[in-house]
């Protein structure tokens, strides 16, 4: 009865002797034997019948006989020891049977002879499930990674939006203030002119009195002299001119700032015309390169003519600001490259420099008005915010990428508006 049971067990059971000759195979094995061994498997080396993994089987059988200790093999490492088909050749996903194997040492009590018993388990379903699970988990992981990236992108986009929002409001405010400041600047300027005129007149009067002091009698002479001394006339005369000069210079700087700020409120539709970007690029590069002559400059363009509808002054201004930053970022010698690219919808302008780069913590702020890392008096922090506003006005995009110690790339994308607009655009 036991023999019948063993015959029918849903696991493979085989017994081999110390020479690896097959003594017994149950149905599970016999049903799957290679045709030529169906009737002659007995007393044949198991490694001949299943030559596919002969070396491995031999090694494991040897170990069992020598050590008299069971040996195990798993589908994860060695899925198909015996070349058996999956038990579901039609509906299953796997074509080959996945197997776990265990070899046990056994001893015939009556003869004392040693045998090895091979148990083979069909774990195809389990393996298939496991593998599907693994694929799923890999897919999930991938998806998760993609989501993480997306969230990161959204985060950046959001902070850029906030930035843009801030820019817009600060810009408007700045433009408003600039306008208001313009009036007082105007009269301060003309008053200063008048004042310096008046000062000159007063000085001439005093000088005249001083020159003719000998014409007065001693008492008056003494009084005049005392008066001049008490009021420190010599000092005033020296200082007054300097003070006026300095005030004028200061006022000019205020005027510059205000002019820059006014860019924010400029209406870009005014002054729109066809602009050829290759020309604009090389013109601005030329200006910057004479100022910062130690660097190497290069303009790269894919097309001979790259035309857009734009305000040429503003575009030049924007490029100028960016190129200046690039040149200023290079401490000693380096290169600045401007490249122009055109496709059917966009023009991409890239300004690349080999400068010191931008620290991560500053990346979010570089477009902010008045943000500068330059020493006091050397930068207003308006270059990039002005460029930003100009590009926005032209319905374009501007972004900046940087690696500390390596350099910086500013990328501008401008949409190509159709030429028909040029007819209606005012000169």
């Amino acid at each position, binding site marked *: 009865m036991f023999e019948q049971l063993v015959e029918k067990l849903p696991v493979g059971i085989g017994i081999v002797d110390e020479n690896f000759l097959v003594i017994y195979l149950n149905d599970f094995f016999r049903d799957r034997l290679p045709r030529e061994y169906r009737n002659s498997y007995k007393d044949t080396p198991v490694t001949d019948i299943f030559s596919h993994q002969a070396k491995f089987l031999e*090694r494991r059988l040897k170990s069992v006989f020598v050590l008299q*200790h069971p*040996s195990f093999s798993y589908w994860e490492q*060695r899925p198909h020891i015996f070349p058996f088909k999956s038990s579901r050749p039609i509906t299953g996903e796997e074509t080959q049977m996945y197997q776990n194997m265990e070899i046990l040492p056994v001893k015939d009590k009556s003869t004392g002879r040693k045998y090895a018993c091979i148990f083979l388990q069909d774990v195809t379903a389990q393996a298939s499930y496991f593998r599907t699970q693994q694929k799923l988990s890999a897919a999930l992981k991938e998806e998760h990674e993609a989501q993480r990236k997306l969230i990161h992108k959204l985060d950046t986009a959001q902070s850029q939006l906030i930035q843009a929002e801030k820019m817009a409001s600060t810009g408007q405010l700045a433009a408003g203030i600039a306008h208001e400041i313009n009036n007082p600047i105007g009269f301060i300027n003309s008053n200063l002119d008048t004042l310096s005129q008046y000062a000159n007149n007063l000085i001439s009067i005093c000088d005249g009195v001083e020159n003719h002091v000998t014409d007065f009698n001693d008492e008056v002479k003494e009084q005049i002299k005392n008066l001049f001394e008490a009021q420190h006339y010599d000092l005033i005369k020296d200082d007054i001119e300097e003070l006026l000069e300095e005030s004028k210079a200061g006022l000019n700087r205020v005027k510059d700032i205000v002019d820059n700020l006014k860019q924010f409120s400029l209406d870009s539709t005014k002054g729109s015309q066809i602009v050829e970007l290759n020309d604009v690029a090389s013109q601005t590069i030329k200006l910057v390169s004479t100022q910062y002559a130690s660097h190497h400059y290069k303009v790269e363009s894919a097309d001979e003519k790259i035309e857009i509808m734009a305000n040429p002054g503003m575009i030049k201004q924007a490029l100028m600001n960016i190129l200046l930053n690039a040149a200023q970022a290079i401490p000693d010698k380096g290169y600045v490259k401007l490249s122009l690219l055109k496709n059917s919808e966009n023009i991409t302008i890239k300004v690349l420099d080999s400068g010191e780069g931008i620290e991560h913590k500053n990346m979010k702020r570089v477009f902010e008005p008045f943000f500068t890392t330059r020493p006091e008096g050397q930068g207003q922090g308006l270059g990039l915010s002005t460029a930003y506003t100009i590009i926005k006005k032209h319905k374009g995009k501007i972004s900046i990428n940087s690696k500390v110690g390596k350099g910086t790339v500013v990328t501008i994308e401008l949409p190509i508006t159709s030429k028909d607009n040029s007819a209606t655009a005012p000169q």
Partner: protein
Amino acid sequence: MSVVIPLDEEQRDALQELLNIAMGQAANSLAQLIETKIDISIPKITSVTPAQLYSLLFGSQDTFHTRQSFLGDIQGEVISVLSRSGLSEIAKLMDYSDPLSKEDVEEIILELSNILAGACLAGLSSQLELTTNLNMPTLFTPNKENFDELKWQHSLVMEVQFTVAVSSFSMRVVFCLDDDSLTRMKDTLDELLD
């Protein structure tokens, strides 16, 4: 921290002696199979907390781990710690050819664990005249948190290190017994001592 060893001096010595013999047999088995000389350290018997066990097993880097449970008169788990270095030389001795795939490596460490743990356990059981059966080994990658959550306070561990003479390979086999088995083993040791 004082380590409580739940064995008295005499029991300990007796067990030490038995382990020496059992481990020697184990080393011989492996040596026979891969035809190389194998050295063993003097087996260490200690009582550990989960945290101590963790650092005992996973203190060194660049190691593989497997675990196997055994049932029978005494029960517990064997954890093997195998060095990464020298593994490819052992693989050659075991008839694997370069380059080793990930699966080859896994198979080799499972097989080595099974042989050594099996031989040690068989030796120990026969010395103590107990019957035990070793289950199949599996790969083991634990993390510290899981060890902190273990329910037991102290466990007796028996540890032995094997080194293969011609390579930089070494391997530690650590036996951990549960409380019942410890009592059972103490009784058996007492019987042997009488």
